[in-house]
Every structure is written in C-alpha cells, then in structure tokens.
C-alpha cells in the first residue's frame, strides 16, 4: 500500500492545490482518465468542507488528506479536527454571519460527493471527522518477456 499524505492550513486558496495533487496521484494509481474529473471535484468538495469546519470552529490545525493506493483501488481520505455537536448546540453567532447558508453549502457539498462517488464513507465524532472515497483502478499491465 502506497500513501501520499498532504497537510494544508485551512485556507480556501490551498484547496486547489489539494485537487491538483489528488488528481495527479489518482492518475498515477491507475484511476480511469474519464473519472479523474470526478476525483478532482469530490476531493475539492471534501477539502472545502473541512476548511469550512476548521474555520468555523477556530481550529488552527491543518486539514489532512491521505491518498491511498491499494490493490485494485484508490482511496482518498480527507480528515478534519472539528468536533461535532448535536444539532442546535452551536453558540449563537459562533459560526459566521449566516449559519443557514453555511449549512446549505455544506449539505450541497456532501450531495455532490454522494452523487459522484459510489463508495463513500462519512464519519464524525467529538475529535473530528473524515470523508473516505474509493475508486476502482485498472489492473496493472504485466508485460511478459
């Protein structure tokens, strides 16, 4: 199993970098060229969500992206350190000027990921959450002597 790990400060300008790196590693891992656009979009959505969660929670820790090359599959895991609370448990005014809009964008991001990726796992807990997305890869071509 080969892994590339990327950590970046929770800033919007770094999400594009994460997309580019993820697409490059996915291509190298054998993910179908036709699916690379989806990989790029899905990892961008996951990173955007993580950046938003860190910024809204005032977390200075970086967002973590794992690009995992396995046999016959390629996975991307985007991890955040934002603690999850029960709905309605957020302090008034603590989540920016328009919490409803943020919530809508968050849900839209997850909707896009769910629509794009068949194999997706979303977890969240007191110490943060993660989105793990997996795509099949082409079997390596073996050239016989």
């Amino acid at each position, binding site marked *: 199993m080969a892994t590339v790990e990327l950590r970046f400060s929770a800033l*919007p*300008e770094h*999400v*594009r970098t994460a*997309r580019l790196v993820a697409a490059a590693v996915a291509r190298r891992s054998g993910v179908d060229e036709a699916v690379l*656009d989806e990989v*790029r*979009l899905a990892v*961008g*959505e996951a990173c*955007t969500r993580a*950046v*938003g969660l860190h910024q809204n929670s005032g977390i200075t820790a970086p967002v973590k992206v794992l690009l995992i090359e396995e046999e016959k599959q390629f996975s991307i895991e985007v991890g955040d350190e934002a603690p999850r609370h029960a709905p309605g448990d957020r302090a008034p005014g603590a989540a920016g000027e328009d919490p409803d*809009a943020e919530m*809508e*964008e968050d849900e*839209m*991001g997850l*909707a*896009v990921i769910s*629509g*794009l990726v068949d194999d997706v796992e979303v977890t969240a807990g007191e110490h943060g959450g993660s989105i793990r997305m997996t795509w099949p890869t082409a079997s390596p071509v073996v050239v016989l002597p």
Partner: protein
Amino acid sequence: MDLSLSTETVGDRTIVRVGGEIDVYTAPKLREQLVELVNDGSFHLVVDMEGVDFLDSTGLGVLVGGLKRVRAHEGSLRLVCNQERILKIFRITCLTKVFPIHTSVEEAVAATD
C-alpha cells in the same frame, strides 16, 4: 487558474462572462459581481459559463444566491453552458430544474419564458 469576469449589456439583459475555476477561493469574487449588478439595477442576468474549467458546490451556492436576489426583483438568471462535466454537477444537485440552461448566449438573451 484564477477567475475572470467581464460584463456586457444587451437590451435589458446583462451578460456575465465567467472564465477559469469557480471554487471556495474564487467564488466570493463572483458573488460580489452578482451582488453589485443587482444593487445597480441589473435584474436579468445571463451567466456565460463556457469559459469555466471547474465548478464546485460553493460556485453553485453563489449562483443560487444570485438567483434569489434577482427573483426578489422579479428578474431572471439564465446560464449558458455546453460542457458536460459542468452540466453534470447541475444534474447531480437537481439544479437543472432551478436554472434555465441555454446552449448559447444568443438563445439565453432571446429567451422570455
């Protein structure tokens, strides 16, 4: 690639030509542009997305916000897009039912329904 924006007025329609990538970093610029147009009295917008290389949910959110603003003034927001990879995002989120999507600026400018 950054975001490029330009506007042109055709009759009572304002065409907003967008190029580059619309994501969490660049989407605020598009939001500012749409808000400014509506504040200046442009309520019939045509957003030409033929030059857009990448669009994510943040960009979708900005377009939905723009639609809400123009509708508050009985206006319209039409999109021009022929790129399958961009159209796919609108389909996944069912926003094809919300936005009129045209194949050319001319068609969008002429549309009245």
